[in-house]
């Protein structure tokens, strides 16, 4: 009934306007709008094609296999091996996932299954805020707070667990994969929590009540009924988090050390692809093939990220979309 009242002025104006004129206008605007919706596809295509084109010079000088598996990065000598950077990207992302996933899943379960509505109403803006903090600010936090902590922590761990290669230490600075992983973990937390909450919401309440009515505790209900049903959705959420972590640039660049060597310990520095691109854009026009190599790095990064992003996006559409019907 209320809707009527708001619509009155439109009704009048549409009667006053000549019929034909309106129809033409509608058609025209419809066509224009349709053309604009092609824009996202066009951008996607142009980004990919232009990166491929700009990478051509280096692809004609070196084979793809050579580039992807090469360990040496000496632009002045014309050696462009991407492997240390690809490895660094995955090391840091993996570190971040290991640190982020358990607390994120537990927090999401807490927020969507346990806590009072009042707490989850407060938690949402806080998580939005966490997602909105700019990555240089994360970087500042990492440099000021996390790197020194990791520096101290690494010397202690090294004393006791140094014999395990993963924890061995040959880097006294604290600028390391662990630091990058911690910063990234906090950065992707709001994404993973949000997706997981959304996925948990796809389980109908009646299913939970059915289990509770049989005398199951809340946790038993979650463990045996809710989680098995949402496993793939939660996994997709984690992959989504990974896709965000893989492309993160500034925050990681500021704390990860940037040494072009394949890392072997969490206290080693690493040099992820985004950092490589960001750090060297300045001189890339002055050395032959260097610009093609850096844009190649951008292309490799784009392909990796798109792979993870596409899998998770399509899976989540299917999962969250399906049960909304």
């Amino acid at each position: 009934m209320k809707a009527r009242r708001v619509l009155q002025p439109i009704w009048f104006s549409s009667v006053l306007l000549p019929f034909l004129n309106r129809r033409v206008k509608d058609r025209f605007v419809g066509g224009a709008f349709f053309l604009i919706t092609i824009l996202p596809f066009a951008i996607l295509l142009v980004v990919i094609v232009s990166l491929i084109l700009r990478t051509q010079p280096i692809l004609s000088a070196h084979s793809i296999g050579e580039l992807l598996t090469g360990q040496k990065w000496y632009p002045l000598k014309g050696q462009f091996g991407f492997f240390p950077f690809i490895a660094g990207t995955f090391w840091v992302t993996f570190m971040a996932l290991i640190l982020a996933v358990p607390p994120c899943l537990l927090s999401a379960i807490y927020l969507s299954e346990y806590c009072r509505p009042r707490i989850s109403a407060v938690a949402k803006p806080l998580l939005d805020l966490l997602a909105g903090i700019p990555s240089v600010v994360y970087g500042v936090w990492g440099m000021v707070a996390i790197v020194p902590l990791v520096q101290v922590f690494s010397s202690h761990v090294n004393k006791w667990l140094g014999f395990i290669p993963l924890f061995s230490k040959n880097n006294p600075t604290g600028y390391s994969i662990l630091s990058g992983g911690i910063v990234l973990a906090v950065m992707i937390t709001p994404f993973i929590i949000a997706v997981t909450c959304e996925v948990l919401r796809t389980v109908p309440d009646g299913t939970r009540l059915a289990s509770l009515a049989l005398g199951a505790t809340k946790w038993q209900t979650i463990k045996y009924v809710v989680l098995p049903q949402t496993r793939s959705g939660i996994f997709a959420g984690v992959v989504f988090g990974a896709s965000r972590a893989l492309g993160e640039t500034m925050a990681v660049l500021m704390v990860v050390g940037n040494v072009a060597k394949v890392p072997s310990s969490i206290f080693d520095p690493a040099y992820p692809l985004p950092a490589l691109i960001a750090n060297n854009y300045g001189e890339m026009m002055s050395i032959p093939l260097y610009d093609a190599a850096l844009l190649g790095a951008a292309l490799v990064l784009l392909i990796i990220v798109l792979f993870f992003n596409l899998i998770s996006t399509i899976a989540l559409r299917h999962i969250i979309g399906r049960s909304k019907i």
Partner: protein
Amino acid sequence: MEPHIQVRDLNVYYEKIHALKDIDLEIPRHQITVIMGPSGCGKTTLLKSLNRFLELNESTRMSGNILIDGEDIYALGVDVTEVRKKAGLLAQHPFPLPMSIYDNVAYGLRIHGMCPNGRSVDAKVQHYLLEAGLWEEVKDRLHFPATGLSVGQQQRLCLARGLAIEPEILLGDEPTSALDPISAQHIENRLMDLKNEYTIILVTHILRQAKRLADYVVFMYLGKVIESGLPGEIFDNPQEERTLAYLEGQF
């Protein structure tokens, strides 16, 4: 005979809504008690107070006592899961758990550690599926997902699942209203068979179903129990105007 459930001076509020007002009720053992009344009068709320489902909702408050076998189920230190194990629920819509037919029935057994050795699980699953009248239809596909069953079969599965935890009380909240007539008939027959061993409380809107099944009738209106007694008295000779009006279909 000592009543199985005693409700004393029960009041329930959802925020500001006073959903149950000064309920006093005695529910006889091993009989079918039918609760009737117009929509919104508090029947579901009363059932939920019996298996402590009310406390799942943050905004509810309640006062009064509910005794099962003379013991207050809301007393301090009472384990909720034990209360719910004692009072099984058959909801309006069947919600099979997202697992196989077999596991649906075995779920409660495992949760409560009622089957220390594996072999007896098989036997119990078969027993309760038989008791719910579903065994013949599903014995060849026990390990298929329960969601593949028809709605009527799902409701009987929910019955088997509820029976498997060996409750003393069965709470049915319009358990046949989502079913086709034949499936509804199935459930009714099961309930008739089961009443020798269980105390059954059934909410229904269907007058004829109530007449067929009831051993004891409770009539509610606007959160109050207006009248309760044997079906002969209530159906044929109601003392209250409002009961009569309801029975004549005036609501």
